[in-house]
């Protein structure tokens, strides 16, 4: 069942993104930014945890999970160390994604030449 929900959730997000891009002047940058904010809002209303329960790792794949992780990391920070904790904790859980992206992108940039 998890596979079915993962399929539906990621597929639905991609479908919404494609409809927005085809019918408006917004670029991929606009849509991804909107989806990150959407993820944070879904996390705010505790909806995202339920999506993860249903869709498993599929729910962690889209960029919306980035917003959800940021929100929950900030909230955990507040609960452990007050307002200072928000600043200390906000980027902790998303660190893996950002670090991996930076490191792999840098290695690839050193190795490969840009095409055309």
């Amino acid at each position: 069942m998890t596979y079915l929900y993962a399929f539906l959730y990621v597929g639905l997000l991609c479908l919404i993104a494609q409809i927005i891009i085809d019918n408006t002047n917004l670029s991929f940058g606009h849509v991804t930014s909107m989806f990150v904010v959407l993820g944070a809002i879904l996390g705010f209303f505790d909806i995202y945890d339920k999506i993860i329960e249903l869709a498993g790792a599929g729910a962690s794949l889209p960029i919306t999970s980035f917003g959800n992780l940021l929100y929950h990391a900030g909230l955990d920070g507040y609960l452990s160390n007050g307002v200072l904790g928000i600043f200390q904790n906000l980027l902790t859980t998303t660190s893996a994604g950002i670090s991996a992206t930076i490191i792999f992108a840098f290695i690839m940039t050193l190795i490969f030449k840009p095409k055309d």
Partner: protein
Amino acid sequence: MNKEQYQNLVKRKTPKENRLMNSIVAFFFGGFLGMLAEGVMQLIRHIFNLSILDATVWMMIIFIFVACLLTALGVFDKLVNIFKSSLIIPITGFAHSVTSAALDYKQDGLIQGVGSNCFKLAGSVILYGVVAAFVLVIIGVLIWQV
């Protein structure tokens, strides 16, 4: 030929994109990637005997690595032309935007080119993610704690 006629001509000659087809492709390939993510996560979990959380992070790192590699090989843009937004919305799109920006500005040097420009496209995701999360935490705290 005046401006209006020219614009009509452009409108007529521009190939029409099949929006319905785009959406269907995006839905099914995006869904396939979601299933693949769950499958890869389960595989890692059973092989290395990890918790679901750790296996999920490994799965994301693998997806990011593959996206960076495909971008550097010049394949990713061709795949986006076929599979549309289904490759941009998952974390692969984030990895792609960083790698492609870094590669495009490689000629300007490592500091002023790669260093200054690698977050040219992905920066908006981090910026608005952090700002939105911060504001929502503050709102949540004001609502529930006071």
